[in-house]
C-alpha cells in the first residue's frame, strides 16, 4: 500500500517533467540591433555645434521606442566639482521617441549648449522592441571650446 503511494507520487512527478515548453507563441527574447551611423566614436565637437545623429534600428518582430542618452563621463581626472568653472555644466540630455516596423532609420539634430563643459561624453542609444527586449549601444565623443 505504501509502496503504491510512493510509486504513484513518483509517477505524478514524472508526468510533470513530460510537460513540454509551449514556446510556440510570442516568447520573443531577441533584442533589437542598433547601428550608430553618426556621430562617430571619439568625434570632437564644439559648444554651440549642431550634432547630427543618424541611427539604424532593426528587430526580428517589431520596434517600439528609443532613447538617446548623452551625459558627461569625465575627463579622466577627478570628478570633484571644485575645479570646474561655475558657468558651465556637465551637459546631460535624454530624448525619448517612438519607433515602428522592423527597420527604422532615425535622423535627429541635437544642439550642443553653449554652457557645456569640456571633456568626454557618453552617447548612448537604447532601443526597445514590442516584447520589451532592450538593446544598448554607446560611443564616446568630446567637446572642446573654440
Amino acid at each position: 500500500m505504501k509502496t503504491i503511494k510512493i510509486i504513484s507520487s513518483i509517477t505524478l512527478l514524472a508526468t510533470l517533467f513530460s510537460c513540454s515548453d509551449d514556446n510556440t507563441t510570442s516568447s520573443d527574447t531577441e533584442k533589437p540591433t542598433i547601428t550608430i551611423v553618426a556621430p562617430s566614436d571619439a568625434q570632437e565637437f564644439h559648444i554651440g555645434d549642431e550634432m547630427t545623429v543618424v541611427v539604424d534600428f532593426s528587430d526580428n518582430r517589431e520596434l517600439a521606442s528609443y532613447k538617446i542618452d548623452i551625459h558627461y563621463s569625465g575627463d579622466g581626472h577627478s570628478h570633484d566639482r571644485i575645479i570646474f568653472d561655475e558657468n558651465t555644466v556637465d551637459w546631460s540630455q535624454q530624448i525619448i521617441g517612438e519607433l515602428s516596423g522592423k527597420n527604422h532609420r532615425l535622423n535627429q539634430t541635437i544642439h550642443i549648449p553653449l554652457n557645456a563643459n569640456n571633456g568626454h561624453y557618453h552617447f548612448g542609444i537604447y532601443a526597445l522592441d514590442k516584447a520589451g527586449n532592450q538593446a544598448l549601444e554607446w560611443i564616446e565623443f568630446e567637446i572642446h571650446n573654440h
Partner: protein
Amino acid sequence: MRINFSCAFLFIGFVSMAQLSISGSVQDIHHNPIAGATISYPGQITYSDTDGNFNLTVSYQTNQQLSVAYLGFKTYQITIPFKDEISLKVILEPDYLNIEAVSISAKSNEIQNKKRISKDYIAENYTGSLSKSLENVAGINVMSIGSGASKPIFRGLGLNRIAVTVNGNKHESQQWGADHGLEIDALSQERIDFVKGVAAIEYGSDAIGGVLSIRNNIIPEINTFKINTTLLTRSVNNSVGIVFDLQHRENRFFQKFKASYIDYADFKTPTDSIIYLSRNIPIHKRHLKNTAGKEWNMFGQFGYVEDNYHSILTVSNNYTKAGFFPGAHGIPDLNRLTDDQNSRNIEYPYQRANHLTIQNEHKWFFTDSEFTVDGSFQNNHRQEMSEFHTHYGNQVELNTSDVELDFNLSTFGLNTKFTHYFSDKHQSNFGFQGQFQQNNISGYSFLLPEFSRNMYGAYLLHQYDFAENLRFDFGLRYDFGRVDIEEFYDQTLYNYLISNNYQEDVANNYALRSPSLSRDFNNYNFKIGTFYSVSPQLDFTLNLGSSFRNLTAIELGANGIHHGSFRHEQGNNNLDAERSYIIDFQASFIKEKYAFNLSPYFYYFSNYIFLNPTGEFSVLPHAGQLYKYSQTKALLTGFELEQSYSFNRFSTEFVLEYIYSKQTSNQMPLPFTPPLNAFVKLDYTLFQNKKYIEKSDIYISYKYFAKQDRISQNETLTPQSSVFGFGVSSELKFGNIKPKLFISAQNMFDTKYYSHTSFYRALEIPEQGRNIQIMLQIPF
C-alpha cells in the same frame, strides 16, 4: 585495512559454546545513530537498524575479525574473542579523504531532505569563498562576484529566497543585492547541513529554496586541546591566506579561538578582451583590473557545560574589502580600464563590509524535554566607495567624501525552542522567534531606504513514529510583523529635471526615491512529512509544505537606478508576500560501497515577485526602460541525482541536476536559472599506511553545464561549458602530528567559459582561469 581510531567498548560475558552472540550499536562521532552500516563476520552479515542497533549470532572462528563499515567512514575492525555474549558500541570516524565526506548518513530525528557537509569537504573543495566551495553539492549553484565573494543558489533560487543560518540564527545582511557575497568565513565552520525544500516551519521567511544551516558551536570533548594552523595559496588570484584555530576544554568550561586572513590580487581570466555593448574592452595581461581584495576573520567562543545544561557565548567578526571591476558600474570608461601596473592594489570603485555577530545560547535538558533560548545581535556595515560623481550636472554640493553608498544594518534576534518527548513514538517542538532590524543609510547616492522591521513567528512541529521504519511529522507556523520605511526625496534630482524642462509632476515622481510607508504582514505555513524505510538500505522521504518570504524594502518602495543591475527599478506597495507550495521527495539507497540518491521536487508559487520590464523608458541618464516589481504565478521543478561507488582503491561520484522554471505572466523561465549540469569525480587511493603518508588520494573531476537557452527577458544566452579539475589530497604523519595537504587544480585547461549565474555574466566576463592551489592544515 587496519584498526583505526574508532573506539569500541566490550562487555564480556561468560564462555559457553562455540556460538557467539554479538550485539551493539553504531554511531558517528556526534553520537548520531548510523543505520544501514554493514556488520560482517566470516559467514555472517547484517545491517544496523534505524537506531543503529544490530545483533548477530556467529560460529566462532579463531582470530577472525568483525568489521563494521559504512560509506564515508573508516571501516572499523576488531578481533572477536571467544566469549559467549559480546556487546559493542562502535563509533565510526569519518573518512575525510573519501569523497563521500559529503555524508548521506546520520538519520536524524527530523524528516527533512538534508545533506551534511563536513569541515574537511570544505577544505578539500575550497575555492575562495564558502558558497563557491559548495558548488558541486547536489542542489547548490553559485552566484559569484569576483574571486573572493559568492552567494549560494539552491535549486535555482537565491538572494532572499534562501536562508543561511549560523548556530540557528539567520544571517542578516543585504541579501537582496547580487553584487556582494556571504560574509561568512568558509574555513572556520564546523558543520554544515544543507536542508532542501520544505524548511519554513523552523526557519520562517526566506527558507524557500532551502537553508544552509551552519554550525560552529559544537561542544568539544572533555580534556581536549587542539590547535590547527592552515596555510593556503591560490594561483588564479595570487592569494595567500592563514587560518589559526584553537579549541580547549578541560571539564566544564571550553574556549575556542579562530583567526584568519587572506589577501588576493586581481584574478586571471582566459581572455584578452571582452566585447560588451559592441565595445572592445581590453583585459590587460588577462587580469581583471581592480578585483583584488582582502578578508580577515576573528572568532571567539566560550562555553559552560554541565550534564543538563550548557551555555555558549559566540563573538565573530568578518571584514572584507574587495574592488569592483571598473567596467561593472554603468557604462565603462575605456580610460579607467588601462593597466595600472599593480595587480594587488584596490582602487575605486570598491566595497567593504564588516559583519559582527554576538550570540548567546542556553540549553536545558530534562528527562523528557529540552529547552533552548538564544539571543543574538548582528551588525552588517557595508560601504561602496567610488570617486564622487553625479549624473545631474547641477549637483552643487561640494562633496569630498567618496562614500557612494553606506548601509548599516543592525539585527536583534531571539529564538526559543521547547522539545518534549511524550513517548518514544511522539515528540513535539514548539518555537517562538522574534527579530528586530534597523537599517540606516548615508552616502552621496541613494539606493535602499532607511527602515525598521519587527518580525515574530511561532511554530509547532509534531513527530509521530508509527513504526520503527515509518515516521510522520506535521508542522504549523504563524508569522506576523511590520516594516516602516522612511521617505527619501531627492531635491537635486527634482531641480535637475525641472531645469531640463520636465513637467513638475514628472520631476516629483522621479525625485521621490522612496515613499514613507508602513506595511503589516502575516503568514501561515504548514508542513507534512513522511519517512519510510523499506529496509536499512532503502528509504524514502516525502515532504509537502508551504513557504514564504516577506517583501524587501526595495520591492516595496524603491525608485531609481540600481547600478549593480544597471536598471531603473520601481517598487510596488501593492505586492503581497511571496508564497510557494512545495512537494519534495527523496529516495536514498546505501549499501556497502554504493550510494544512490534521487531528489525530485516541485514548487508552485502562488505569488512570485519579479521585475517586470514596462516598455517605458526612464528619463534619467544611465537608465534604459523602467522595471517595476510585480507578482505572478510561477512554477519551478527539477531533480538532483547522486551516485557514488567505491571499489578496490577507486571511488567515483556523480551528480546530475536539472531545473525547469516558468512564470505564467510571460511564459518565460525565472531569471538566473542554472542549466542542466553534471559533475563527475574519480578518486584513487595512491598510498596508504606508508612511512610518512597515512593516506593519499589522487582525483580528477569534470563539471559540465549545458547551454542555457531558456532565458528570461533581457538575459543572455550562455553556451555550454566543460571544465576539468585535478587534485591530490593527503594525510601525512610525522610522529604525533598528522598534517593534511590538499593540492588541487581547478579549470585545469584554462578554459574560457561563462557561468549563467555569475554577477559578471551581463558584462560578458568569463569565469576564472586555471587555478592551482595548495592548502596545508597542521593540527597539534
